[in-house]
C-alpha cells in the first residue's frame, strides 16, 4: 500500500515539476536515479523520489517554492564526491543536482576574483585564472571532480590550506536561495559585508541552510618559485615533533603532509615515487615564494629536519622530482585502496602535539578490531585521515569498520580535537556529534537551522542529530562510565 502511495506522490510531484522545468531536467525512472543514490561514501545508499537538474536560478527558486508548499525534502548535490553521505538522497524527497550550473561567469583580474556557478569544478577555476597569473588556493585532492558549491557546503580543505586557508578563507561572496525561495547575496568583491557574518555560517553548512547559486572566489598571484622536501623518520613521534619545530621557527610552508609506513608503502607500490619504504613516516614539505626566499627557506628547513632527527632529507632537484614527491601523496587514497577490497576514510582533527599518542591508540584499536589501518595526515594543521581497510563482502566487516571509525573520532574529541576537519558530518558522523556537543549546543544548532529553513526541508536528517537520536546513541554507548545527556529520558 505504502509503495503505491510513494508512486502516487512521485507522479504528482513530477507533473508539477515538469511545469517549471524542461522534460529532460526531471528524472523519475529507477535507472535514471541510480547515479544519484550515493556520494563518495558508498556504504550509504538511497534512491530519491525524483531528481531534478535545473539550469537557471529561477528554476531552482520555483523548485524550492513548490517543494516548500508541498513539504517535500530537498537534498542538493554537486559532484557527489563528498565522503560523509551529505548528498545522500532522501527517499521521499527531491535530489537537486547543481551539475548544470557549470559556467565560469567572470574572471576579474583587476579585483582578483572569479565569479562562478556552483557546479563549476574546483580545478576549472584555477585553470581559468592561470592566464592572468592567478590561482584559486584551496585544492582538495578531489579537485578535478568536486564542485565549488560542494566545497562551500563542506568548507573543504586541501594540501595548501596550511598557508592559504580553507574554503571559508577564500570565498568573498555567495548568492543563495533559502528553502522559502528568498534570494540572498552575502558578501561580494569586498572584504567584508554589513551585518552578521552569514557567509561564514554558510560554510560547512552541508546543504542544510540554503542552496548556493553563485560564488565569488578570491584569486591569488601564483608564487614564482616552489620547492619540495622529503624527509624520512624512524618514528612517527619524531616526524610529528619535526612539524612543530618547523612551525615554531616561524615558517609556514605551503604544504606539510605526513604519511605513515603502511600508506607510504602502498603509495610507493602504486606510483613508484621513490619513497624510502623502510621509514616509519615521511614528511613532505612544500615551500613557495620568490627565488631568493626559497633558497633561504630550503636551507633553513633542511637544517631543522636534520636536527629533529630525520634519517634522510631530500630536496627535489627538478620539476619532475617535485611532481614525483607529491604523486605518492596525491595517490595515497587509491593506493591504499589497492590493499583491500574496501577502505573507510576517517577525518578527525587533533592538536598536533597529541599525534604520537593518537597514532599509538589507533594501532591498538586496529588490533582490537582486526582491521589494518594506514594514516595520511595534513600534519601542519592536525587533520588526520586514518584509512581503515576492510572487505564489505565479509559479513559484519563494514559494521566493524564503522565501529572502529567511531572510536577513532571519539578519541579525537577526547584529546581536544574534532570529529571532522573537512569532510563534514553528513549522515556518517551524526552519532559522534552527540559526543562533541551537549544538548544545549545541539538545540541552538537546530534553532539556527530553523531561522534559515523553518520547515526543516533542506537535507533533513544530516549534520545535526536530534536530541532523541543522541539519547538512543548514548544509551548504547557509555563514555568513560558517564552517560552523555544525562538529563534526557532513556528508553
Amino acid at each position, binding site marked *: 500500500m505504502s509503495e503505491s502511495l510513494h508512486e502516487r506522490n512521485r507522479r504528482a510531484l513530477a507533473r508539477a515539476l515538469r511545469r517549471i522545468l524542461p522534460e529532460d531536467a526531471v528524472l523519475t525512472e529507477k535507472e535514471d536515479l541510480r547515479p544519484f543514490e550515493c556520494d563518495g561514501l558508498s556504504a550509504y545508499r538511497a534512491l530519491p523520489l525524483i531528481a531534478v537538474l535545473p539550469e537557471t536560478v529561477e528554476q531552482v527558486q520555483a523548485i524550492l517554492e513548490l517543494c516548500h508548499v508541498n513539504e517535500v525534502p530537498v537534498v542538493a548535490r554537486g559532484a557527489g564526491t563528498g565522503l560523509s553521505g551529505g548528498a545522500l538522497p532522501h527517499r521521499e524527497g527531491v535530489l537537486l543536482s547543481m551539475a548544470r550550473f557549470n559556467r565560469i561567469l567572470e574572471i576579474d583580474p583587476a579585483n582578483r576574483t572569479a565569479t562562478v556557478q556552483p557546479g563549476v569544478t574546483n580545478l576549472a577555476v584555477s585553470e581559468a585564472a592561470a592566464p592572468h597569473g592567478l590561482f584559486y588556493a584551496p585544492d582538495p585532492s578531489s579537485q578535478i571532480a568536486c564542485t565549488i558549491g560542494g566545497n562551500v557546503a563542506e568548507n573543504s580543505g586541501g594540501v595548501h590550506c596550511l598557508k592559504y586557508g580553507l574554503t571559508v578563507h577564500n570565498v568573498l561572496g555567495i548568492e543563495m536561495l533559502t528553502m522559502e525561495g528568498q534570494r540572498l547575496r552575502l558578501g*561580494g568583491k569586498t*572584504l567584508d559585508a554589513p*551585518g552578521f557574518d552569514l557567509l561564514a555560517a554558510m560554510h560547512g553548512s552541508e546543504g542544510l541552510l540554503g542552496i548556493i547559486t553563485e560564488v565569488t572566489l578570491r584569486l591569488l598571484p601564483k608564487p614564482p618559485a616552489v620547492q619540495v622536501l622529503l624527509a624520512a623518520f624512524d618514528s612517527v613521534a619524531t616526524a610529528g615533533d619535526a612539524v*612543530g619545530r618547523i612551525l615554531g621557527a616561524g615558517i609556514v610552508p605551503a604544504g606539510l603532509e605526513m604519511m605513515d609506513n603502511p600508506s607510504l608503502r602502498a603509495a610507493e607500490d602504486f606510483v613508484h615515487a621513490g619513497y624510502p619504504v623502510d621509514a616509519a613516516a615521511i614528511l613532505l614539505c612544500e615551500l613557495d615564494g620568490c627565488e631568493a626566499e626559497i633558497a633561504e627557506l630550503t636551507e633553513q628547513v633542511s637544517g631543522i629536519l636534520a636536527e629533529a632527527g630525520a634519517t634522510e632529507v631530500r630536496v627535489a632537484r627538478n620539476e619532475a622530482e617535485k611532481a614525483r614527491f607529491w604523486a605518492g601523496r596525491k595517490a595515497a587514497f587509491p593506493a591504499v585502496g589497492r590493499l583491500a577490497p574496501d577502505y573507510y576514510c576517517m577525518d578527525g582533527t*587533533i*592538536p598536533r602535539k597529541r599525534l604520537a599518542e593518537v597514532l599509538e591508540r589507533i594501532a591498538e584499536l586496529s588490533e582490537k578490531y582486526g582491521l589494518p589501518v594506514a594514516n595520511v595526515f595534513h600534519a601542519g594543521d592536525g587533520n588526520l585521515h586514518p584509512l581503515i581497510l576492510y572487505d564489505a563482502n565479509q559479513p559484519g566487516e563494514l559494521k566493524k569498520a564503522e565501529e572502529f571509525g567511531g572510536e577513532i573520532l571519539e578519541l579525537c574529541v577526547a584529546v581536544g580535537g574534532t570529529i571532522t*576537519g573537512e569532510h563534514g*558530518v553528513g549522515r556518517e558522523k551524526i552519532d559522534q556529534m552527540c559526543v562533541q556537543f551537549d544538548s544545549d549546543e545541539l538545540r541552538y544548532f537546530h534553532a539556527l537551522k530553523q531561522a534559515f529553513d523553518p520547515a526543516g526541508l533542506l537535507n533533513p536528517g544530516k549534520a545535526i542529530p536530534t536530541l532523541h537520536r543522541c539519547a538512543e546513541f548514548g544509551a548504547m554507548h557509555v563514555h568513560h562510565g558517564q552517560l552523555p545527556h544525562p538529563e534526557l529520558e532513556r528508553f
Partner: protein
Amino acid sequence: MDTDQRDALQARVREAMDSHTPLRIAGSGSKAFLGQPVRGEPLDVTGHRGIVSFEPTELVVTARAGTPLTELEATLAEANLCLPFEPPRFGPDATLGGTVATGLAGPRRPWSGSVRDHVLGATLLTGKGDILHFGGEVMKNVAGYDVARLMCGAFGTLGVLLDISLKVLPRPAARETRVLEMPAGEALETLQRLAREPLPLTGAVHVDGRLHLRFEGSEAGVAAGARHAGGDILDDDEAFWFAIREQMHPFFAGNMTLWRLSLPPATPLAAMDEPMLIDWGGAQRWLRSEREAQAIRAEAEATGGHATAFRHAPEGEIFHPLPPAALQLHLRLKEVFDPFGLLNYGRLYPDL
C-alpha cells in the same frame, strides 16, 4: 588579576531575563563610538580575563574576552608570534572580546585575513543565559554550524563572548616600507598591478599624495619585494603604520564625518574632491564628507560595496542598511540567540 567570571556573568544575564532589564555589554569602551548608543545597564566583562591556554608550537591561543589586547599581544610577542590581523585598539585598555565583537582589523587584513578568519572557537553566553561552546582549538573543524565565526562583527547582539580561541602566526622576520609620490588615481593603478604579482605585501596606504607599501616576511623576500616596488625607504615606518591602524594620522583629526567605504579594491576614484585615505590596497577607503548619507551609501553600493558612518556620524543608521530578505534572517537569528532583546539591543540595527 586573571579571573574566570563566567558564572557571575551568567547569573547577571539570568537576572536581567527575570527583570526584563536590557544590558549593555561593557568592555573598556574603546570602540563605544561605533554603532548606535545602547540603552541598558552595563554588563562589565573586563573582569573575565586571562589567557586560558597558549601553545606556541600549535599556533593557538585561548583567552577570556576581557583580556586586554596589550597583554595578549605581549604574551604572543614573547613567543615571537602575533595576531596576524593587526587589530586596532582605539584605546589603551581595548579587550579581546571587543576586538572580535567589532571584527575590526588593521592594515594587514587583505593579506593576512580578517578577525573571523582567525577565530577557531568561542564560548558564549546567550541572551537566554546559556553557556555554549562552538569550534575549538584546532585549525580545521567542520562539525556543526560555524557559530563562533558568526559572533565576529555581531557587536555582542547575539551573545556575550566569554572565551575565544585564535589562530596566531609567527611575527614576520623582516620589514621594510617604501614610499612613492603619486596621485591617488595612479596609486590605485599601481596597487592593481602589484597585487597581481607575488610580493610579500602587507600594507598599502595612499594618503597626502604618497603611496606607502609595506613588505614583511623573510629577509630575502622583503628585500626583493621592496626593490621591485622602488620608491624611497620610509625610516620610522612603525610609527606610520601605528598611526594608520589607530587612526592617529592627521587625516583622521577633526569633526567632519568619517566614512568607511568597503569596496572592490580596483574601484576607480569617484570624481568628488573630498579628502580620502586609501587603505587595504584599495579595498577600504576612508572618506571625510558632509554629503548626505544616502548619497554616499548609494555611491558605494553602485560599485558593489557598502559604507559605514564610522566617526562623527550624522543622524540615522551607522551601518549600511540591509536588504529586506537579509534583515529578516538577522531578526530570526536574534530570536535564536537573544529572544528577549537583552544584549546590546539596537547597537547594529534597530530591532536587533
